[in-house]
């Protein structure tokens, strides 16, 4: 049944929206503020056991033997599993690219520090940890593959011997006549860049309670699952279960940012539950486990990149060569992060040609995971830094080289060389707004003055795209099949007229339940409090994916409105019968079903719904007694990827211009952020406070990536940053209180014109800060091309430049 989804607030059946588009208080908050949300570690089941996991101390070693006999004798220990159990009862987990995975517990050898080797279920976590100390494992250490460049050499030790190489994937994509563009260029600017590993680090780690039913051969898992249906499919395959006998219940969870992980922990607890005869087994990942062996690490990249330009400053080509260290296996979907830059490869610019020379390599580091932004943040940094290098080479202001190359507003929808289509945008408007907010000219004057005093003051100004509403087809080049990501919502009205929306995802922090409630309250003319949003498990919910890839605001509002339209059509049929007219004469407005043009001929929604449920004698014959409808939405017009990876993939393209002022302390190399301005255009804002929260949160993570956060490994692939004392997250003193402006260029392709904004400023902030740092360093003739620009790195650069303050 074709459904007409409203395209603007004015299409909603309300004379004046009271909720949508406003910064209403979040319906999620009372539960969270009082500590009553059911985070997974708050859940206890009868007979529940607690799991602890023994992990490899070696990055690369053969397992010669495991002896669990002493551990088994410890009172309170119920069951222990090792690789033997995994071999008997599981298959290697899904990977991308395919066949670069292992079972949940190591069987023959270990490939990274922290890889699970054995697991204990005991009556308490304390006892389970005690038991780990009694397990004896004999290892034969193997040569470590620590350096991704050496990993490419033919005589390198191999992570997976059966592949005969450590290269997981190597492709050279050329879009358009890129070699000709470089041959015919007036100027070519090139640089190498290094982006070190960072990662999600939600404040809550992963946790799960698994319960195996040995009679039914079924599995129920409660956990902090970001993508429960995807995780359920993975467990179906790894544990060899029938798909409709795997039920995942996603609990409210403390953030995710793509890096929640959880596949191994879920499989391990499932094995323990199975071996214990079906007792529920809980595992809560501790922080050290998360940092060392969880879904914690992303983007370990070595770049060489070039821009081709004409004399007038127009960019004619972009070449990016990327060596991406994905770590020991492809289980973490880190490869997706190398593919996603195809969705926004040439940024905000009308660059006609491009090349992406991509190598994904395995080493003995932790398998890479997704992280908010999923790959473009480093890519954007490379592109934006190159734009500044080119500007400097041609004597242009950073604002002007960007202005010259923007895709103009009239060119949308616009297809970029790597295949994605941008829906709409006005990049120059965002630039002008940022320049105006910051009083850019005055800032440059202040900078000139500061330079005279020897101060290292820098201004960074960048423009980026945030691809929104993800689609699987964007990841075809790393082996992901399929096009479209269905998201379903069921809307129902009960006998007393209250409205419930049932969705397939749990609370995670983005305020999506509030958005659904705002839409439904306006649609059916009720108070916000009259609407409840309820999470369903994977076997109960309509097809769903949940949050990820800046999609849920758009997908959820489309599905909610689609279901509302279907429900309205049903109500209209019943109201027509009751009001003695034809359904096409009935309209919904402000909570009333009314006969068009007949004042007073109307009935409240609640009355019609109540009639449907309690007066079958009054129903028209073709209407079932169910004031309920389900709608499953997927983005329209998506296309499968061609052999060069080109597809209409992400539906929306939000954009932002960030302008940041930093000062480097020459004695310490420390960077202070002095001012920060944001002009952000994500189309219509469904809840402006939610949007601002997404942007500011992205700024904080961007500050972390640019200045503090880094997973350090030694030459044996031992992680040196396995606590929050070493892996530095930004605090309230490190993150700038930003000045933000909202621009609104609605998407022509989404309900209400909203664009995805959930990943938001992490696309932009690292590039902005790095460009500001380099602007500060410019008079010294050195470039910072390693991210994060931590004090030690900047201090070394200052020393190299013989800055008088930087000496021993």
């Amino acid at each position, binding site marked *: 049944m074709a459904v007409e989804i409203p395209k603007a607030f004015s299409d909603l059946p309300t004379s004046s929206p009271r909720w949508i588009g406003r910064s209403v208080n979040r319906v*999620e908050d009372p539960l969270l503020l009082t*500590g009553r949300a059911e985070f997974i570690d708050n859940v206890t089941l009868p007979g529940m056991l607690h799991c602890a996991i023994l992990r490899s101390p070696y990055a690369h070693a053969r397992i010669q033997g495991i002896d669990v006999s002493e551990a088994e004798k410890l009172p309170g220990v119920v069951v222990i599993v090792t690789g033997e159990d995994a071999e008997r009862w599981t298959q290697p987990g899904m990977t991308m690219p395919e066949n670069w995975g292992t079972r949940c517990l190591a069987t023959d050898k270990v490939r990274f520090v922290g890889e699970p080797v054995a697991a204990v279920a005991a009556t308490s976590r304390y006892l389970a940890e005690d038991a780990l100390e009694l397990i004896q494992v004999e290892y034969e250490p193997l040569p470590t593959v620590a350096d991704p460049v050496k990993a490419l050499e033919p005589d390198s030790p191999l992570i997976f011997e059966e592949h005969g190489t450590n290269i997981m994937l190597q492709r050279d994509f050329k879009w358009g006549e890129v070699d000709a563009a470089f041959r015919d260029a007036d100027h070519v600017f090139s640089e190498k860049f290094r982006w070190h590993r960072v990662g999600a680090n939600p404040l809550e780690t992963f946790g799960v309670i698994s319960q195996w039913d040995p009679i039914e051969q079924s599995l129920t898992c409660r956990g902090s699952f970001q993508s429960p249906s995807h995780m359920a499919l993975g467990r179906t395959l790894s544990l060899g279960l029938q798909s409709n006998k795997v039920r995942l219940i996603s609990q409210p969870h403390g953030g995710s940012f793509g890096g929640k992980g959880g596949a191994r922990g879920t499989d391990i607890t499932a094995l323990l539950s199975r071996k214990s005869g079906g007792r529920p087994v809980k595992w809560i990942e501790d922080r050290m486990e998360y940092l060392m062996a969880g879904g914690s690490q992303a983007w370990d990249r070595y770049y060489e990149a070039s821009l081709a330009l004409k004399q007038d400053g127009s960019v004619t080509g972009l070449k990016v060569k990327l060596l991406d260290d994905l770590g020991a296996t492809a289980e973490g979907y880190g490869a997706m992060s190398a593919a996603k830059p195809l969705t926004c490869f040439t940024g905000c610019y009308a660059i006609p040609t491009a090349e992406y020379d991509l190598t994904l390599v395995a080493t003995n580091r932790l398998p890479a995971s997704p992280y908010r932004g999923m790959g473009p943040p480093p890519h954007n940094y490379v592109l934006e830094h190159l734009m500044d290098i080119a500007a400097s080479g041609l004597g242009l202001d950073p604002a002007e080289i960007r202005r010259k190359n923007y895709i103009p507003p009239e060119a949308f929808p616009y297809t970029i060389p790597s295949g994605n289509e941008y829906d709409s945008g006005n990049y120059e408007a965002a630039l002008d707004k940022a320049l105006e907010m910051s009083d850019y000219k005055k800032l440059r004057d202040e900078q000139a003055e500061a330079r005279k005093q020897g101060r290292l003051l820098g201004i960074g100004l960048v423009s980026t795209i945030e691809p929104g509403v993800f689609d699987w087809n964007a990841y075809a080049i790393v082996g992901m099949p399929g096009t479209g990501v269905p998201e379903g919502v069921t809307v129902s009205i009960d006998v007393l007229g209250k409205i419930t929306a049932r969705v397939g995802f749990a609370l995670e922090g983005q305020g999506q339940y509030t958005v659904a409630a705002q839409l439904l309250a306006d649609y059916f003319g009720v108070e916000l409090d009259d609407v409840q949003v309820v999470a369903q498990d994977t076997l109960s919910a309509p097809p769903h994916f949940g949050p990820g890839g800046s999609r849920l605001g758009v997908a959820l509002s489309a599905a909610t409105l689609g279901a509302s339209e279907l429900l309205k059509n049903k109500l209209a049929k019943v109201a027509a019968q009751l009001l003695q007219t034809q359904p096409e004469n009935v309209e919904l407005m402000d909570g009333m079903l009314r006969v068009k043009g007949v004042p007073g001929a109307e009935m409240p929604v609640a009355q019609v719904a109540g009639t449907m449920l309690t007066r079958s004698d009054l129903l028209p014959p073709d209407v079932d007694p169910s004031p309920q409808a389900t709608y499953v939405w997927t983005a329209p017009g998506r296309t499968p990827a061609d052999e060069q990876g080109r597809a209409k993939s992400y539906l929306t393209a939000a954009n932002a211009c960030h302008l940041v002022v930093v000062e480097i302390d020459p004695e310490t190399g420390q960077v202070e952020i002095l001012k920060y301005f944001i002009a952000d255009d994500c189309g219509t804002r469904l809840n402006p406070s939610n949007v*601002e929260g997404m942007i500011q949160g992205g700024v904080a993570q961007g500050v972390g990536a640019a200045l503090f956060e880094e997973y350090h490994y030694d030459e044996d692939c031992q992680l040196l940053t396995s606590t929050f004392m070493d892996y530095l997250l930004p605090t309230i003193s490190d993150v700038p209180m930003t000045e933000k402006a909202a621009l609104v260029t609605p998407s022509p392709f989404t309900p209400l014109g909203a664009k995805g904004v959930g990943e938001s400023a992490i696309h932009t902030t690292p590039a902005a800060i790095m460009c500001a740092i380099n602007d500060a360093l410019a008079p010294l003739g050195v470039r910072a091309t390693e991210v994060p620009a931590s004090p030690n790195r900047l201090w070394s650069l200052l020393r190299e430049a013989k800055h008088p303050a930087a000496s021993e």
Partner: protein
Amino acid sequence: MTTTRQIRLTVNGMTYEGRAEPRTTLVDFLRAELGLTGTHVGCEHGVCGACTIIVNGQSVRSCLMLAVQADGASLMTVEGLGDGKLHPIQEAFMEEHGLQCGFCTPGFLMATYELLQQNQDPSDEEIKDALGGQICRCTGYQAIFRSVRLAAAKLKTAEA
């Protein structure tokens, strides 16, 4: 290793008695033995501040304190903040969107409570100092900062 000790402590005005191993952390005792799961554990090593509670009037990382050390102490957790309705600090966090996932929030609320108990009118720098040991991965702190400002104003108005 499994010998336990009897402890007695007051939490949110209620007296509890229980047994704890000497190694049991205070937060594990609160959560597992007393069922007070509003206090969350983010890092178990005293950096993130999610497990912040008030012990004898002072903020404490309950992951760094042993349960037996709290014998005889008076504690306050997030469950003790409101009294059947939201406390003005909780209201302020809601109105300013000072939380997203909510996992770190109980710690921020307790740190804010301590600050505003000691200082009714904190400066910007005093707010940042008081919250400098609390990590939030979602909000970027700006809305939290505004929440604390609003909470201070609400508490002053309530007092006036």
